[in-house]
């Protein structure tokens, strides 16, 4: 129930900043009706009680749909939309292990040591589609965030994702390096991305 409380400071920093971010991938705040408000939580920190177990609580992607890095310009235009599925994967480049180990941390114990581990977050449903990321940790420090799945229902989503995801990723990393507790910015948030990062951190037992 309370595994979240043991989260390492630096990882929490990254998440706090991420939640604050401006960024937008999928979710501008232009909800226009009850049916379009963000719903369908796959996970919330309060309910991620199974954080120490290696099995996923969400539905794992059988294969990475997308894996944009900060250098990707147009590589993730063929991601699976909404449901688990595979298509058009793009090499991740910055994650040495590659986004293949959906669902289980490489070291599932409650580690505090400086070993590297790659943990896949839950696939989080948003009204734009599913978002799933993988977090690479070195000890308690996030060293990379790889997007496994992003919405692509419309061309607009693809454009936004190509622009936003590298930024979201960089924000997680920068938030650690700059020792920033939180970020103020124009009111956009990437809800699904942040949720998936959080679930990965929970799962890492970090």
């Amino acid at each position: 129930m309370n595994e979240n409380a043991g989260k390492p400071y630096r990882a929490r920093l990254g998440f706090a900043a991420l939640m604050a971010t401006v960024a937008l991938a999928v979710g501008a705040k232009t909800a226009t009706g009850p049916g379009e408000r963000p719903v369908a939580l796959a996970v919330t920190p309060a309910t991620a009680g199974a954080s120490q177990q290696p099995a996923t609580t969400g539905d794992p992607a059988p294969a990475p749909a997308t894996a944009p890095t900060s250098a990707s310009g147009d590589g993730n235009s063929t991601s699976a939309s909404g449901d688990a599925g595979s298509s058009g994967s793009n090499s991740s480049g910055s994650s040495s292990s590659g986004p293949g180990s959906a669902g289980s941390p490489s070291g599932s114990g409650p580690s505090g040591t400086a070993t590297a581990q790659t943990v896949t977050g839950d696939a989080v449903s948003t009204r734009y589609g599913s978002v799933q990321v993988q977090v690479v940790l070195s000890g308690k420090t996030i060293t990379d965030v790889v997007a496994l799945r992003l919405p692509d229902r419309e061309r607009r989503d693809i454009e936004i994702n190509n622009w936003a995801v590298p930024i979201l990723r960089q924000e997680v990393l920068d938030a650690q390096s700059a020792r920033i507790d939180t970020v103020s910015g124009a009111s956009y948030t990437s809800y699904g991305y942040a949720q998936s990062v959080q679930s990965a951190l929970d799962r890492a037992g970090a």
Partner: protein
Amino acid sequence: MPSRPGRVHAEPVMGTVVSIDIRRLPDAAELGPSELDTAIAAAVAVLHRADEDFSTFLPGSWVSRLRRGEIGLDDCPDHVREVYRTADACRERTGGSFDPAWRVDGTLDPTGLVKGWAADAASRALTDAGAPDHCVNAAGDLLVRGASGTGRPWRVGIADPFERARLVAVVEGTDLAVATSGVSERGGHVVDPRTGTPASALASVTIVGADLTLADAYATAALAAGHAAPALLADLARQGWAWLTVDATGRLARSAGFPGQVAATASAPSNGIIPPDMHPSERLSSALTRSTPTAAGPG
């Protein structure tokens, strides 16, 4: 058992996500896991209550009933009237040009105000529940209270409106409200109520003060004020608010009392529009310079 530094919770509410970050300082021995749960629950309840009371989506909300003319403001409970009083204060401060409780189309919609108000209320709930050291961040508009760690203030990054993985400033403090309004990748989303056109002279406005409801409202008002923004900001500075602006060309300006480090410039592209393929390349470490208190605001 490892130390428990606190708790981070993200709550989807009000059409966005509000994050609550409680720090548990070593001397707060009484703040155990169950107390943290209770504090989070209290704050979350406040947020949802605000959502329900002020939602324009829920037909039974106070705001919806006001919009349909079924009730008047006098029929509403205190906290609803308080939000509208805040709107009045903002309208008066802006010389009548900006009322955050109304849409350009003439319909009543205090949504923009409610987010800050709800975060203020959630913060009070956390303090009342025994968690005085916390941050409540409502999708970029935030409050910090107490300390982020032993003897350590909170450090709040201000996002570069043109390159969001970059920061244009870092504000430090122990009890601050920080609100930023800005144009987005979708183009100007704040409209000058006098012209009906997107306000674009400034790319972002950050207001720092004690109260998030007003800080948020003033940040939006200043962004919408166009040519009147410098006068409004000067007035706010006289009232004790600190501010930081980024104009459409990336130039920064700030109030004399702005409590933090400020970068020399934002990374505005020459045409003032964010290209969709832009990706972060600059790092905070090279962007920040220690600010000098003599830097002037916009004239």
